[in-house]
């Protein structure tokens, strides 16, 4: 047997191989631990930075062409949005005071990974808040990449959800929740969401994310109904729900 007994070192080939295997396994464990840190912390850092910048940019474009004092109402001419465009901000008091999530068109990974709430464009093209009727459906990450909908399960029937756009505050109230459903259940974002308390056309808001936390096994949905549209004043005074 070729056991090397040189310089006092008595390690056979098997020993060396086992030692190498052990070191590789330790390395694998460390890499996996790093991946957890990456997923749950670093992607948040990156996404919050990107969303903060994008949000600031959007607010700048809002204030740039001096809005007429007194403001226009929600009936202003509806702008057209392309994928990735900033639409406004979602405020959910149940997520904490001053909660603010940038809303952008599209639900691709590139959009959602930037720490925003994405507007569904498929399988159903969402109605926008200012549309006469339809469902404004949003998705956001539960964990990592900003984790904007981490606390979506904290929303209960009656809680306010506010969408802020250039010209208006759209105040919704939660009407129903679906704690768990299949990821193929596209009906939850339909114009009249399937499984929701709504039976006819109306102005609805749907928030979806994955559940349970840290996995993507199922989806969760929260449905809300528009109760009021407040025009934005010169100082952008938030509606009472956000104060």
């Amino acid at each position, binding site marked *: 047997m070729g056991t090397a007994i040189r310089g006092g070192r008595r390690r056979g080939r098997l020993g060396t191989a086992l030692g190498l295997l052990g070191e590789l396994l330790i390395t694998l464990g460390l890499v996996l631990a790093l991946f957890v840190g*990456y*997923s749950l912390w670093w992607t948040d850092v990156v996404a919050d930075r990107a969303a903060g910048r994008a949000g600031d940019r959007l607010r700048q474009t809002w204030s740039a062409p001096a809005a007429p004092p007194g403001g226009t109402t929600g009936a202003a001419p509806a702008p057209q949005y392309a994928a990735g465009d900033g639409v406004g901000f979602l405020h959910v008091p149940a997520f904490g005071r001053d909660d603010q999530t940038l809303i952008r068109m599209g639900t691709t990974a590139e959009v959602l990974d930037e720490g925003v709430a994405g507007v569904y464009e498929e*399988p159903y093209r969402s109605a926008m808040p200012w549309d006469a009727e339809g469902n404004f459906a949003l998705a956001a990450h539960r*964990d990592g*990449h900003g984790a904007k909908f981490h606390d979506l399960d904290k929303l209960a029937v009656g809680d306010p959800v506010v969408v802020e756009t250039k010209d208006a505050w759209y105040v919704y109230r939660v009407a129903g929740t679906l704690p768990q459903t299949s990821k193929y259940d596209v009906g939850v974002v339909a114009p009249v969401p399937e499984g929701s308390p709504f039976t006819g056309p109306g102005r609805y808001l749907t928030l979806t994310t*994955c559940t349970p936390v840290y996995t993507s096994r199922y989806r969760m949905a929260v449905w809300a109904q528009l109760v009021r549209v407040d025009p934005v004043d010169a100082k952008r005074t938030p509606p009472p729900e956000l104060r």
Partner: protein
Amino acid sequence: MYGWIWRHLPGPAPVRALIALLLVLGVVYVLFQYVFPWAEPLLPFGNVTVDQGNGG
């Protein structure tokens, strides 16, 4: 493996420790900047949309 790297680093122990630390930081940087962003979409942890199974 780690022993081999340690033996092949130049200089006295403190210098070796510094170089080893830099190597670790370099590896972490490459993982965070390139490897994890590549691997993440392949893993089923971040899909939040309802769809016909294309992920999201």
